[in-house]
């Protein structure tokens, strides 16, 4: 049950990331170039995660039996969110590996991935240090 819950959050947040990346124009997290595709795919991914979770087993069981009580739930949510960000950032970086980044100044923060992928932003900083 704990692993299923972790999968729900991870899978669901991959969808949420597509919606937020499309809305906020974060190139480094966008799998789909067109905004509507990001909204649509993100919604489908998130909804499918919930449908899978609730149809794949009995989810109406007390926490101390399933092992997913309050504190464990928070831990699984944070872990799921972090893994989801890593998967999305790496996927997008690999997907756009050959594309040239728009001219970005070396720097830190989310603003950097508006025009570049995580790897491109990282290499930009490494180059500057060289």
């Amino acid at each position, binding site marked *: 049950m704990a692993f299923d819950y972790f999968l729900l959050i991870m899978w669901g947040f991959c969808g949420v990331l597509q919606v937020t990346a499309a*809305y*906020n124009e974060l190139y480094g997290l966008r799998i789909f170039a067109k905004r509507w595709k990001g909204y649509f795919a993100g919604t489908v991914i998130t909804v499918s995660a*919930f449908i899978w979770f*609730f149809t794949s087993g009995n*989810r109406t069981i*007390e926490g101390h039996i399933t092992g997913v009580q*309050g504190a464990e739930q928070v831990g699984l949510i944070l872990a799921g969110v972090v893994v989801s960000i890593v998967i999305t950032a790496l996927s997008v970086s690999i997907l756009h590996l050959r594309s040239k980044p728009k001219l970005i100044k070396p720097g*830190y923060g989310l603003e950097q991935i508006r025009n570049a992928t995580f790897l491109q932003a990282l290499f930009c900083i490494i180059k500057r240090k060289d």
Partner: protein
Amino acid sequence: MLSLDHKLLLWIAGLAGRFATLDWLVKYLANDFLVPAAMALIGAGLWFTGKTKDERRQNQWGFIYAIVGLGFSALLVQIINDHYFRARPYVNFPQLLPQVQRLFYEPTVSSFPSFPAAVTFAFAFGIWLENKRIGGLLFCMAALMSLARVYIGIHYPSDILVGAAIGVAVAFIFSWILRLILKPVVNLVLLIFERFFLA
């Protein structure tokens, strides 16, 4: 004579079994996982949201308030539940037992104060402090989950009210502490996230 709390419980829980669609909906709303997971995903998504850096930073502060508020309200309710036990409504009103078994499970932990109400309201309040629109949406989700639990018969309305009040109060106190005392620590955490292009 029944107290107002009991009357309200019996009136709301008395609706169960009348409308199949409502029962189906309530079964999911009251679930331990659906609303908390949905709220968490919305809150975490807010971390990346904002047209400007300042707007996004405001949302990130909201998420931090929400997480800290949730953590400490969970801790406080856990302590209260360990020291004070109130039987679930279906124990005092056995006529509610069939609907509890049909729509939920029979919880064994103390009914008062409501743990889910405390954590969901704390989370919603933390977000609401910085983003009224999304915070309002989260408040609605928390209220629906709480109401669903009264409908099924696993919480008294007073469990929910006190749980929600604890959640909001704890989130408010810790948001104040974070803003006025621990601001440099939060800024340091945000700076670390910034280094990884995550804030």
